[in-house]
């Protein structure tokens, strides 16, 4: 059997289907995107090559700059708010034991089960200045006027809260699974040595969770860059692009503004950024692993 797997025709035939899928479902569309990125194609009619014009325009496009800034802000929000909270909640859940553990685990995961469309409209109503829940609470506490939660200044923070809240369950569940895989003997030993909860958390849980944290952080950054559905349904990037994200901007340019070529140029830059960020994160984590070893 070992020899069978070292036989080249067998290896080739095993790899071929995956390779074909990768070539035609991933590489070919990327190749087409690169090509259309050099054109002024509107999605209909003639295709004209215009060199790097789309990329030059992109470099001067404030809305695209804003969308990248917002993605960065969201990534920071995920890393600094969502994930620390998720680790803490996962650690607390682990200690709860019994029925409560299962109940709270389900409750925290509920937002992930609900459709993005429902989530977006739910929060749209919560934020509504006339009948929204938040303004009614503010009113009950004596706030005189209506607060515009989705104003140009506030909207990005309002959107970040929704996105952080919505993705919280996934992060928490992965950390929870990671914590469950830690050998309980370590906790018992720490307990015998008189370590309290915080010492155990910082001395055992966090260090042993490093690989899980690394994967979760990489996934969080990529998901911040790819953000589209919730933003599209909640604010569609408005008011005046203040909540714009790269994927939503790409959609608007390609399919609403009839700038298909420009949309593809955004897509190409977007892919490059995603690849660079993933490579950078992997090398940072690799360096850390090596220095730890």
């Amino acid at each position, binding site marked *: 059997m070992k020899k069978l797997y070292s036989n080249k025709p067998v290896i080739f035939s095993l790899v071929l289907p995956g390779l074909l899928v990768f070539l035609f479902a991933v590489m070919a569309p990327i190749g087409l995107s690169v090509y259309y990125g050099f054109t002024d194609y*509107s999605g*209909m009619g003639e295709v004209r090559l215009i060199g790097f014009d789309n990329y030059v325009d992109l470099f001067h496009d404030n809305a695209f700059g804003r969308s990248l800034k917002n993605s960065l802000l969201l990534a920071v929000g995920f890393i600094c708010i969502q994930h620390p909270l998720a680790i803490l909640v996962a650690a607390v859940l682990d200690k709860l034991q019994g029925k409560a553990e299962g109940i709270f685990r389900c409750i925290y995961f509920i937002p992930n089960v609900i459709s993005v469309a429902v989530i977006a409209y739910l929060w749209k109503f919560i934020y509504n200045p006339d009948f929204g829940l938040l303004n009614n609470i503010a009113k009950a506490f004596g706030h005189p006027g209506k607060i515009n939660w989705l104003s140009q200044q506030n909207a990005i923070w309002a959107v970040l809260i929704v996105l952080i809240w919505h993705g919280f369950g996934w992060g928490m569940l992965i950390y929870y699974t990671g914590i469950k895989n830690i050998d309980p003997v370590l906790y018992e030993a720490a307990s015998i040595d008189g370590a309290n909860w915080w010492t155990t958390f910082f001395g055992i849980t966090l260090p042993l969770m490093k690989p899980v944290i690394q994967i979760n952080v990489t996934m969080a950054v990529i998901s911040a860059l790819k953000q589209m559905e919730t933003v599209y349904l909640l604010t569609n990037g408005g008011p005046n692009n203040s909540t714009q994200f790269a994927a939503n901007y790409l959609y608007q340019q390609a399919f609403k503004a*009839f700038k298909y070529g420009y949309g593809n140029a955004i897509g190409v830059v977007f892919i490059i950024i995603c690849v660079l960020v993933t490579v950078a994160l992997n090398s940072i984590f690799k360096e850390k692993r090596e220095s730890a070893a």
Partner: protein
Amino acid sequence: MKKRMLTTLLTAAMTASVLTGCGGLAKESASTAANDEAAAKPQIVDVEENETPAERSDEAVKLKLFSNLPDRKNGQGLVEQMIIDEYMAENPDVTIEVEALDEEAYKTKFKAYAMDGMPDVVSIWGQPAFLDEVLDAGVLAELNEDDYLDYSFIAGSLEGFKKDDKLYGLPRNTDIMLFYYNQKMFDDNGWKVPATMDDLLTLCTEIQAAGITPVAMDGGDGWPMACFLTDIMVKVTGINYADIISNAVATGDFTAPEIKQATQILVNFADAGMFQVGYDSQDYGTTMNLFTNGQAAMYCMGSWDASMALNEDIAPEIRDNIRVFTMPTVEGGKGGANDIAAWNGGGYAVSVNSAVKDEAIKFLNYMYQPDKLSKYGWENGVGMSAQDQTAYLTGNETELQKQIMEILKNATSVSGTPINDCGPSAFKTAIESEIQGVSNGSTSVDDFLAAIGAACK
């Protein structure tokens, strides 16, 4: 030997499975295509150029209509469906299949169809922001303008659907920008319909003081506010509106004093609290609900929402008291009270590559027979048609319908295409986003004008 055989066998099996998969796929695609063709062919029969309908009376024809009216039970969608059903009843050999999506999804799929073969009859918009690219791509069939001499189209209504003097589509509605207001609320509070923009500002202050939102504005979508800006511009520029805007779009220079003045008026309105809190992020439905729930005294939208007066979901004390007025005049402006923001936007066209083009044009012409779209539209209160509707007045019209008809009858000039639809689609996208920024004060008027100018270049 045994291992060698096993290796060969496994490799062969794997290769066969991969090839079978591919072959199967190819075969399946071919057979699916063939099935599709087979399913389509017996029903879809190409109508020969010189063949009359009578000559192919026993042959089945299948038409596909791609529509932007997904609600088939109310308003314009209902009217469209009524005509389709009648046409099929009168022509038993014709089947009309409808694919309907809401506007944004419609425009996205329209583009996909344009690349890969359009349905036979399609909804279109006779405005440069939509039609220019579509006509450049050559996907719409030319229509014979002489065929429509007896169709009572309002003078000038076909212009937006032409390119190089050739007609490519027909308009469905005449859209007028209006302020809907709650007359009972006005009467109860002693408020008067404003005659000038200063009066309007004063009125808004009074309404605000009463704890009510003065005007419900759908600022989240961008285009209603652009139509509102058009309305202000008409009062500032008068009959010069179209020239000033087309010149600005052509040169990418929006610094004309009239455009600047109109934009400043919009900013002043927003600053004065004319619109609801958060107007720049609220959508169509939420905005309309503010008015129909009595939380807003006025609602700024096009005449297509006149069907509110017949909508039984709206409480009768509001529904029966909805009235309209047009944008008041501005001091020193060239536009009078009867110079209005109105245009012929949506309509229909036929695909140039339709296999049943003659039948599609026949159906299009049937829809536009004066006793179809116009009559049914009027009876269902879906606003003003692009054709003369006076013959279909029943005497049972709602007050709202009568008022709108009166406004159109008394109009001394109409604006034509609203500003956001006057340029390429990139301009439309830019102005509908930037107008949120200028109205909420985060962008200056000069920066706004520079940004929309840049989108034209």
